[in-house]
């Protein structure tokens, strides 16, 4: 399942809903991305996430589908927020559930790596010294590339 939303999310409730009634699940991995108050050596007051409605949902669904094909997953979920956020706020949630923990861990890392390079979101940070658009990191391309065939 995927969701793109402005509202916050509750990881405990999402895990419960996702695993309920499936006692063949042995391991559940979740990742939560949070807004940090520091970017490089710059202090951040607020962050705004813009996205491309329509394409975002399409790409997230495709990323999830790819994970389902590559690993044995009983369930998975991607939630990505957009709009204005503050340091400490939750940005993104990925959950992967499987019979065995290795599948759940690897699939979750994969979701995050692909999401960071393929989902059309753009961050704008505002600090005491003004606004700027966040630049893409080479390290994210490197992380995504390790899942190439």
């Amino acid at each position, binding site marked *: 399942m995927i969701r793109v939303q402005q509202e916050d999310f509750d990881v405990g409730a999402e895990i419960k809903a996702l695993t309920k009634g499936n006692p063949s699940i042995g391991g559940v991995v979740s990742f939560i991305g949070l807004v940090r108050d520091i970017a490089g050596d710059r202090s951040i007051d607020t962050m705004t996430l813009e996205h491309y409605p329509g394409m975002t949902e399409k790409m997230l669904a495709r990323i999830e589908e790819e994970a389902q094909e590559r690993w044995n997953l009983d369930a998975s979920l991607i939630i990505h927020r957009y709009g204005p956020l503050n340091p400490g706020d939750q940005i993104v949630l990925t959950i992967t559930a499987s019979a065995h923990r290795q599948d759940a861990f690897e699939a979750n890392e994969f979701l995050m790596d692909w999401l960071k390079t393929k989902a059309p979101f753009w961050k704008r940070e505002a600090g005491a010294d003004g606004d700027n*658009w966040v630049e893409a990191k080479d390290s994210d391309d490197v992380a995504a590339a390790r899942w190439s065939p």
Partner: protein
Amino acid sequence: MTLMYFAWLKQKIGMGEEELTPHDNVVTVADLIDWLCSRGDNFATAFEDRDVIRVAINQEFAELDDPIAGAAEIAFFPPVTGGQT
């Protein structure tokens, strides 16, 4: 077709979306950018460094030399920066 601009492209161009019918000699994405740049300095400035421009045709990632024939929606944007900070 609908053209869409995101993030700093949207800011530099001064709008997020417009309806346009390019000239007949506009065949590829690169042609489209050339043609857009001829429309005003805001476009010329926004598309100055083409290496950092990403494009999607009908919500699928595309390349500069891809044809635009049949496209209903073409979006231009910088490299994506979602996920955690």
